[in-house]
């Protein structure tokens, strides 16, 4: 795509080289609605060409932050810099971004081509050039022959692509996606999110997406910003936030995990939970007697027959089995502790795992995630 390539190259020549200043800086941004604090002192840097996702439960402030960056609901405190320019107080029309809303907000009374051409006005877009550009955009999103139709005559997925083409028409430096896939059904969704990702990589446009679907976030993002209660909980690559959650919230919110309360014991690296002594590498730096919240992911729990129990294994009883196709999930009980374990159905069958069966569970010391409780 020559125009996009050129545009990206032009941006690289500008103020924001890779490794230089970030393309988008969010500094100490806060937003209040009356007494309600929707965002509190949010700091975030996004590099040129990066795909960043804001992930969190509803009401966590992710959409508020996106709308703040777009200028639709300017923040009440802090600064936002885009390509070195302070845009905090600029109205949306003076910024450089394209946006796709959850509802797509396609203009129903305009054709697909007219929708895409909506922002292509003024002397720099004479008719022939505009028509050329619309045709180009429609072919990029795979709707080359649909230009004359109205949005109501398209499927949900097609409408989504039109919204994407419209947002990209002006070659914006920043693409904002507000829950762009949540109005679609599951299969279209999986397919489209990869399409968005590959389009983004081809065009090299810096992109921020808001979603509450962690699979979606993990699948497409360079980095994920996990948010909760108006704050950023963690920023990291999908692998980082999954393997090394920075807070109990992230550990519980991302993926599945079993959670239990524990106390740091001696020697260093041991914890006591529900009367069982467990090894946990992460507890090493913590003081004896510190109360902690611990998490373990189901796929990390190792199960053996009771007679083959390795040293330090917990005796557990199976209380329930969920068959989920590729994996099987077991609910386990070790005294007051409740654990989940996941593995291939065959592996569990070989162990004789059925409700009521006794097994031995091993929690690998390096896999137990430990967070000191707030005091």
């Amino acid at each position, binding site marked *: 795509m020559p125009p996009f390539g050129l545009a990206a190259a032009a941006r690289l020549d*500008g*103020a924001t080289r890779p490794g230089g200043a970030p393309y988008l800086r969010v500094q100490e941004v806060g937003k209040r609605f009356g007494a309600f604090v929707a965002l509190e002192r949010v700091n975030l840097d996004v590099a040129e060409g990066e795909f960043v996702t804001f992930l969190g439960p509803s009401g966590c402030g992710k959409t508020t932050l996106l709308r703040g960056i*777009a*200028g*639709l609901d*300017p923040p009440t405190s802090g*600064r936002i*810099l885009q*390509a*070195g*320019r*302070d845009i*905090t*107080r*600029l*109205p*949306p*029309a*003076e*910024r450089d*971004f*394209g*946006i796709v*809303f959850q*509802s797509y*907000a396609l*203009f*129903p*009374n*305009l054709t697909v081509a007219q929708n895409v051409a*909506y*922002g292509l*006005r003024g002397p720099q877009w004479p008719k022939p050039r505009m028509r050329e550009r619309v045709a180009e955009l429609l072919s990029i999103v795979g709707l080359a022959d649909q230009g004359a139709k*109205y*949005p*109501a*005559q*398209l*499927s949900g997925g097609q409408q989504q692509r039109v919204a994407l083409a*419209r*947002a990209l*028409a*002006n070659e*914006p430096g920043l693409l*904002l996606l507000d829950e762009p896939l949540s109005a679609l059904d599951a299969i279209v969704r999986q397919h489209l999110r990869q399409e968005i990702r590959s389009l983004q990589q081809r065009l090299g446009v810096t992109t921020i997406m808001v979603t509450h679907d962690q699979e979606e976030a993990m699948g497409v993002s360079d980095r994920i910003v996990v948010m909760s209660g108006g704050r950023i909980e963690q920023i990291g690559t999908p692998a980082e936030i999954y393997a090394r959650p920075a807070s109990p919230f992230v550990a519980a919110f991302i993926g599945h995990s079993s959670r239990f309360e524990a106390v740091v014991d001696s020697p260093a690296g041991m914890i006591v939970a529900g009367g069982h002594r467990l090894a946990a590498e992460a507890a090493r730096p913590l003081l004896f007697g510190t109360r902690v919240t611990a998490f373990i992911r189901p796929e990390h729990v190792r199960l053996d027959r009771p007679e083959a129990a390795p040293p330090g294994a917990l005796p557990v009883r199976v209380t329930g089995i969920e068959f989920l196709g590729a994996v099987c999930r077991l609910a386990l009980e070790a005294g007051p502790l409740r654990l989940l374990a996941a593995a291939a159905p065959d592996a569990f069958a070989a162990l004789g795992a059925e409700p009521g069966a006794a097994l031995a569970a091993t929690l690998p010391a390096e896999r137990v995630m430990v967070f000191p409780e707030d005091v």
Partner: protein
Amino acid sequence: MSETPAPARARLSFDARMMRAGLLFAAGFLALFFVLPLATLLLRAFGTPEGGFAGLENFRIYATTPALLTAAWNSVWTAALTVVIVVPAAFAYAYALTRSRIPFKPFFRAVMLVPLLAPSLLPALALIYLFGNQGMLRELLFGHSVYGPIGIVMAQVFYCFPPAALILSVALSTADARLYEAAQALRAGHARIFLTVTLPVARYGLVSAAVVVFTLVVTDFGIPKVIGGQFPVLATDVYKQVVGQQNFNMGAVVGLVLLVPAVLAFVLDRWAARQRAATMSGRAVPLVPKPRAARDCPLLLLSSLMAGLLLGLIGVAAWGSLVRFWPYNLSLTLDNYDFGRFDTAGWGALWVSVRMAAATAVIGTAIIFVVAYVLERGPQQGRLAGMVRMAATAPLAVPGLVLGLAYIVFFNHPANPLGWLYGSMAILVLNSIVHFYTVGHLTAVTAIRQLDPEFESVGASLRVPQLITFGRVTVPMCLPAMLEIAIYLFVSAMTTVSAVIFLYGPDTKPASVAAVHMDEAGQASVASAMAVAILAVTSAAKLAQLALGAVLGRFTQAWRGGR
């Protein structure tokens, strides 16, 4: 590229400035043509004719004048009686339209709305033809005179039927079929289902219908003027005080008294509307009634009877306007339509009405729509927006007579620089726009709220001024609603008597007022002819709306229709 210094404060973009200007315009318009006149009227109620301060003296005189109190009581009980008759009849009619399988529903729906197209004095005139001193069916009243409460209530039933039936058919049309299936699965009988499912859903609609009818009767002027005889009511009292005795202060007091039930009803109706919205669930499965002879046959009979009465009354008025000398010489003639013989303006009055109504429709729709858009899509915070929003819904609570009176005392005030408006066409148009403002406003707000709230955001992100998005998207999408507002304003302005009767000038007497004067002069058949002429114009406008709506629908089918 160097870093640009951060702007010190929020800069107002072009879009924000346009919205700000729109809001200021809305505030100015409603302040000048609604709030200030009413405030002036309020002051007059506490003043002496010489311009001094009277304190509560005017109210004391009012409270100690038996004739005035009698009028207030008469208004209340005739209104209450009308409610008791109209609401059950309208409920049955609406029930037949929404919950039965009677045939010819479109016909019944159309007939239900016909009285809206006629000035209120038309049914009164028809009743005089039937039951008046020379009435054909006079014996049916057993010696009672139709001139008085009997005639008033009968005419009001006709006049108030359409709004009551409309409100109730809306209330009854939002039924959740699952509730009925659940009740049937629990083996409830028809009567029990009606009492436990149907009535509770419709109860706020019933409250709304009752208060709307009550207010309409209390504030209507045309019917008691024509058929009230010596029976005094509030509405005719205002007119007598102001036009008869030129006592503006006492007129203002009676006007304020008239405002009390109207405001109470308004508040009650808003409450009912909020409750109704809360009971509606977004995922209701629409109810499709199944045929059942035991229900459908009586309802068909009843609806036919009601439709027959509505059409019959209009037919009698039309017939009366066409006969030579009622009831002695029933040969047909067009003499009564030769208005020039009875009133110097002649057909000119109808032309004045048409011009006034057309101007009201065109200018009013533009103002109402722009103001509604600014309120819905402009900055939501701020005290000014809240005040304008309130001022936009308040005109519904102000009876036409009170508004007309407020216009006299405000625009006729020697110190008012806008005094030149008095007696002009412009004041009639402005008054009509404000008088019928709220219904149009609510229609516009509903239409705008159905649009995606992000349209403006998308426009802004593409650096397209909001004005262009308004013109290219919002207005085309809301055209059907705008057409509806325009026709509503046109029909209302054509048929209204109450406000404009204080405001017309020598060259701007509208047809509806002319009809009242002809009746006053004893020319009942000429008045009927004028009322029928008005009905013909409003019916033509309504048909034009239907035709235009159909054309618009075909034109825009591609983007409205499904895939």
